[in-house]
């Protein structure tokens, strides 16, 4: 069963997925909690990826892969040829900083796909990350949401510039597609339609 929804020119359809997500291995060392400590910029308390995890990440030898940001940065030499072949995308967790991606990869449009992993559907950081990638950093290729991606977030994800959605495995992507069109004339401008309704529709005077 397909769990991928792909938006092309505003039209959504179920699609087969030719990308493989590369996962970090589980961490060996005890999680270092940042929560409670006041760190400028990062107060949200997630643990960071360890060097062991990055080294132990198994990257498949062939095929199209989406690698974790930390692996993409640390092992870029290994990946360089495949990046040139358009076979490498990057994924970020919602607490990771886009700045790290941008610092490392000056032209992000060399990446055919960027994916954001959302661990819990209620984590709305994904919407800001999508918005920033599109509007601030000018990303033009496929922007994907995966993880705890459920039907009732799709409309917002679409408006935030996401173009593909891997629906959580226990749910029907075919049913979920309908929610991409829950509302026909949203009020505010966003990535998919930057003009707010008062700029695009004659509401009288």
């Amino acid at each position, binding site marked *: 069963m397909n769990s991928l929804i792909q938006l092309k020119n505003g039209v959504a359809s179920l699609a087969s997925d030719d990308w493989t997500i590369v996962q970090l291995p589980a961490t060996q060392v005890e999680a270092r909690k940042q*929560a409670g400590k*006041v760190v*400028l*910029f*990062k*107060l*949200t*308390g*997630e643990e960071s990826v360890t060097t062991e995890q990055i080294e132990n990440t198994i990257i498949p030898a062939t095929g199209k892969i989406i690698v974790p940001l930390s692996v993409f940065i640390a092992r870029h030499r290994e990946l360089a040829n495949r990046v040139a072949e358009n076979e490498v995308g990057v994924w970020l967790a919602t607490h990771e900083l886009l700045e790290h991606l941008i610092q490392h990869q000056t032209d992000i449009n060399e990446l055919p796909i960027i994916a954001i992993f959302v661990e819990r*559907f*209620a*984590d*709305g*950081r994904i*919407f*800001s*990350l999508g*918005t920033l990638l599109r*509007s*601030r950093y000018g990303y033009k290729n496929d922007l994907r949401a995966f993880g705890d991606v*459920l039907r*009732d*977030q799709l*409309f*917002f*994800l*679409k*408006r*935030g510039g996401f173009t593909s959605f891997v629906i959580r495995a226990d749910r029907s992507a075919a049913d979920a597609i309908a*929610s991409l069109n*829950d*509302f*026909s*004339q*949203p*009020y*505010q*401008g*966003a990535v998919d339609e*930057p*003009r*707010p*309704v*008062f*700029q695009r*529709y004659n*509401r*009288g*005077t």
Partner: protein
Amino acid sequence: MYKYDEIDQQIVDERVAQYRDQMRRFLAGELTDDEFRPLRLQNGLYIQRHAPMLRIAVPYGMLSAKQLHKLADIATQYDKGYGHFSTRQNLQLNWPKLEDTPDILAELATVEMHAIQTSGNCIRNITTDQFAGVAPDEVIDPRAMAEIMRQWSTFHPEFALLPRKFKIAVSGTLQDRAVVQVHDIGMEFYRDANHKIAIKVWVGGGLGRTPILGAVIREHLEWQHALTYCEAIVRVYNLHGRRDNMYKARIKILVKALGIDEFRKQVEAEWLHLKDSPNTITEAELARVAQHFADFDYESLPAQDASFDTAVASSPAFAAWVKRCVHPHKTSGYRAVTLSLKPHGKPPGDASSEQMHVVADLAAQYSFGELRVSHEQNLILADVKLSDLFAVWEKARAHGLATPNIGLLTDIICCPGGDFCSLANAKSIPIAEAIQMQFDNLDYLHDIGDIELNISGCMNACGHHHVGHIGILGVDKDGSEWYQVTIGGKQGNDASIGSVIGPSFSAEEMPGVVQKLIEVYIKERTPEERFIDTARRLGIAPFKAHVYAKNEVTA
């Protein structure tokens, strides 16, 4: 007031359809409790002690007579024939059936109403001054901007799932009545040196378990940028606010952790990219929305009315009501009227369906068909002719809506507390009722004068106890209900958070404790001092001494 066009109507209609399908999926087991929770919350549906609770949005507190009639009918048909007006100017139904809520929303949509974002971790109903548009001290009527912000925040795709709830208040008066300093964002509209509309922006205020007054993030913001500046603030918060601990997730915690200067720096850096983007408000849009709030066709009336003066002179009861419940109006010959939802011994803020119909009729007959809800949980007729006041009073009085206690001790702000709310440490409504009965003497109440007493059943502070001149907070000690008392809190331009006077009290002691606090005030006050002034001048010491003195004697 604002009237929907086809765009607004389509959005609420599509919301009803969306919600109906979410409810269907939930009942069919296709959505787990955890998955359904944020969806239902963003539609105002809580699961509470006895039944679900549905919070209906009353944007910035404005209602038409037609809408209030509909709310009354809904309360009759789907609930127990009453509703509760809340401190955020909304209406709550305490006993709807889960399965009925889609139908209730469909009914609401027929009168341009909804329950969108009345709860949940999103931008909530935007609140303002209940006298917006008619207050003599108003510089700018904030309602047009509030409506523009309502539309912008409705289903804002970037801010649909924030770390925590987000409340915005706007005000355009010299005397702040919207408590902008205890909101996540507070916007104070004023005219700048060039006579242009400008905004002073506050951020990071809030009550709850960590009460904090907001800090000024920008002294001067041109009105066109209201939306993009809010986007910058909320974006920084969305990305960096804590999500690991819901008690530390409000923006106030982020602002405190970073410090206002660092927070401002990040917001301003973000705003550089957003400034002048398409969400910048145009003159045309402001004008379009503002005309919905244009002045009514007021008659030109003299400042005096003979029949009114005669009525005041001949009826002391009417005179008492006029003194407390009638407020100045910017137009000669008109007044604003507060209909008290605080009759002594009844749950503050509750109105029966019958009362709602009466108020709607009064609004239709005497106040251009509109009314407002105040955050003090009363109803307001904003545009009544002097010569009609007596008729309004007679009808209101016949329906228990004319208790002359506005701004007095028994005009209590009170959360639903332990009778309804599953988070409560203690009941709050019975405390309010007991205090009202203790002070059930109008002459005495008038002598005590202006005072605000606020009660919350737990530290979530729905009843704004921190900013009450007297604040009462329900606490749990070894499984029984106790009450902690603060004094010296205040809303308004010089807002402050109250100080705890000492160990907490049992429910039975509470009316006596309030009595003691008042005794100290009466004894110590100078002729022009209100309770809050005396409390500020003297600090808690004399109050504490008197209140606890009695305990020592009897203990």
